[in-house]
């Protein structure tokens, strides 16, 4: 049997088992695990415990970041810091909607741009921005869409864009010349998104807002709020400014140290054990998803299914590739997350380079599109995280529909950057 036939059959079995598992009301995580195991069995590798364990560890670092960052924000919230900041922002800027929206977009762009992770944006500033937006009369579903889309753009924004960095490394290209090609579309698209989804709303009724908002503890002040963020920012800054004399602590420990600062500076007593338990309970579905996605990807790689999808994608005619970038990149992200960069990004950049396009601009355009896939199942990690953090209780499909218009604009801009990359080469400054 040819490799193509075998991989196609295995893929068919995995899809069938996933559908059957969902029919029998298994959770998405267990359905993915069942699909992965069925793929392994069909591929003749049986249980493959090593690969299950290795796949399950793939996103361990990301899980640790989620847990530590959420714990930080939950402590800050319990300390009354979030309520204090929201009240202050509303009081200062409630009259000028444009300024308010632009500031909030900026607030969402910074954490992801610095760390390369949209999840960090959602966890650090997403919740805070969501509360402010809700008092601007914007529906929860639109708020979730705003936070998700801009969090994705923040991850693509410079200085750290993991998709661009990993793809560049895969084609032996220095990560140089990407700053403006990434910064300009990310800022413009973030503003476009927040104005499209956030323009319509009510004028803020300050009295009503203040009455509805939980009160901030009397002793809460800016110093108590800002210092934990400064601790985090200082640790990031130290690592950047003096990378070779500063110990590498990693993002999870940075968030934990910020959480410790928030705990120590809290004007009210914090029940740390209870908050820790609640944080884990809150994130357990997400952690489960990431773990099972890792196993699924590992089994797809083991059995050749990943190769089948990758080779099918990259051997399409160039015109078709251009036409389907907006589908191909988000789907690859949905299945492989950052793994999409080496699997799909590398061959595509080589293909674009071969036909005379500018690889830096083309890769920047692709990097802008990729994060859209973080809302699409089977992973939907950032999408689900955003819905959770914002507190949107409606159907996930409604959230996806709300993301559609800004998502299509982003896909269009990204694709245009790829197609016209040769003319936009001046942006690289090289």
């Amino acid at each position, binding site marked *: 049997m040819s490799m193509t036939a075998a991989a196609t059959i295995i893929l068919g079995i995995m899809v069938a088992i996933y559908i059957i598992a969902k029919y029998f009301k298994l959770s998405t995580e267990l359905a993915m695990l069942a699909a992965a195991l069925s793929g392994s069995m069909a591929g003749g590798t049986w249980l493959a415990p090593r690969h299950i364990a*290795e796949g399950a560890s793939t996103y361990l*670092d990301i899980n640790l970041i989620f847990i530590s960052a959420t714990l930080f924000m939950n402590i800050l919230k319990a300390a009354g810091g979030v309520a204090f900041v929201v009240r202050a922002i509303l009081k200062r800027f409630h009259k000028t909607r444009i300024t308010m929206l632009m500031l909030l977009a900026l607030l969402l762009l910074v954490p992801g741009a610095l760390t390369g992770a949209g999840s960090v944006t959602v966890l650090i500033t997403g919740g805070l921005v969501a509360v402010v937006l809700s008092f601007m009369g914007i529906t929860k579903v639109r708020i979730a869409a705003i936070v998700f889309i801009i969090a994705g753009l923040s991850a693509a924004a410079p200085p750290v864009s993991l998709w661009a960095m990993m793809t560049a490394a895969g084609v032996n290209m220095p990560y140089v010349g990407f700053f403006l090609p990434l910064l300009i579309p990310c800022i413009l698209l973030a503003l476009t998104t927040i104005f499209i989804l956030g323009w319509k709303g009510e004028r803020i009724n300050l009295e009503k807002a203040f009455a509805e908002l939980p009160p901030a503890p009397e002793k809460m002040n800016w110093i108590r709020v800002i210092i934990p963020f400064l601790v985090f920012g200082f640790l990031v800054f130290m690592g950047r400014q003096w990378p070779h004399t500063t110990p590498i602590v990693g993002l999870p420990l940075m968030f934990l140290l910020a959480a410790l600062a928030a705990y120590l500076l809290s004007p009210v007593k914090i029940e740390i054990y209870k908050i820790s338990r609640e944080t884990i309970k809150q994130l357990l579905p997400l952690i489960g998803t990431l773990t099972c996605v890792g196993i699924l990807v590992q089994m797809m790689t083991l059995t050749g299914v990943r190769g089948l999808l990758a080779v099918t994608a990259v*051997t399409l005619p160039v015109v078709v590739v251009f036409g389907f970038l907006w589908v191909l990149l988000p789907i690859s992200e949905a299945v492989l997350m950052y793994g999409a960069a080496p699997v799909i990004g590398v061959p595509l950049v080589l293909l674009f380079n071969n036909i005379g396009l500018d690889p830096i601009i083309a890769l920047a355009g692709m990097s802008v599109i990729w994060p859209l896939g973080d809302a699409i199942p089977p992973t939907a990690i950032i999408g689900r995280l955003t819905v959770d953090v914002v507190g949107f209780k409606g159907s996930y499909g409604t959230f996806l529909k709300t993301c559609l218009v800004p998502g299509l604009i982003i896909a269009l801009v990204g694709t245009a950057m790829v197609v016209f990359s040769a003319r936009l080469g001046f942006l690289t400054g090289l």
Partner: protein
Amino acid sequence: MLLRKLIISAFGLTVLILGGHSFYSHRHLKEAVVLGPGVTDVVKLGDYFDGIAGSINDCNLYILDSGNPGATILILGGSHPEEPASRLAAWLFVENGLMTEGRMIVALSANRSASTVTRLSGAYPSDFTILTKWGGRKFRMGDRWSSPLDQWPDPEVYIHSPSGQELAYVDIRNFNRCWPGRANGTITERACFAFMEMIRKEKVDLVIDLHEAELQYPVISTIVAHERGEELATFVSMMLPDMEGFNMGMEFSPKALHGLSHREIGDFSDAVSLLFEAPEPFLDATRGRTTREQLLTGIDEFVVKAGKAGLLFEKIDEKGWHIDVRIGRHTSAILQTMESWTEIMPDRPLSCEGVPRYAEVIENSTGHYLHNPATSSKVLYE
């Protein structure tokens, strides 16, 4: 509900025990090295820099000294242990080589940490076996990056020293992105620093860093040369088709791309630095089933399909790229480099006997040149 929990717990426990056993066995697999007639000494990398002594990256350095005047050449195998032909080509020198002029130093596991782990989501086999007449020799399959068990966590961005160039965060564990290393850096950076110390102290004249690359990577089947090695690399590239029967291109080491051996060793020592790349379809993102067989034969229908679509930088057909072919390319290229070096610099010759060349490795297979540790008195383990 209880039954469901019990079933899931039992499943988890099974995976934990069987998976854990596999990881432990992989990390502690002893790879035999039968010392050949030319090995005059074996030292540790830590002998040159205390900062790496006793660590997992304190690898063996095999010295083949002719006792006759000449240059000193360093062969780096295992910079990226997911590229097995690079390690095995170096192995053939240790088990078979006899220097007649000059001196050779060989590392089989330049980044030993990376040889004890496989790539997350890569589904690599933990090991592979090279068949021999007396049985088989088992080797660890490794990763491109040092094991997180030895170096963790990663920073949110890797800033290379001393250039300050920003690289993907995982590359702080990439041995061939950490040159020239740092004395007080991570274990990967310290390993690079230790090698630099060794290169300087042993007055190494020529360094060859052996690699394999996916076929969709533009730097493939080539010699990447520091500017001081351009003449030598060009000479070798010209000689190989006639003398050995295969082509290897020649490329200049980009000055703006930092952390790589071909750039930094040349910049931070007196040695001429070259990097050899052979094709390894196993590394291609479009590869099909991830198996030991594919690793060894390099046969892959999907990679062939990618090639037909013009996405590859090296040819591939249904015959694939067998590991014997990849190893033979490396051994011949090294031997040809030594001969070319001697022609260019006759006062500092390099000459080695006993190591099979390209045609011989293909004809007799790699296993023919690996000796039986059970019947040998001089055996070490990697």
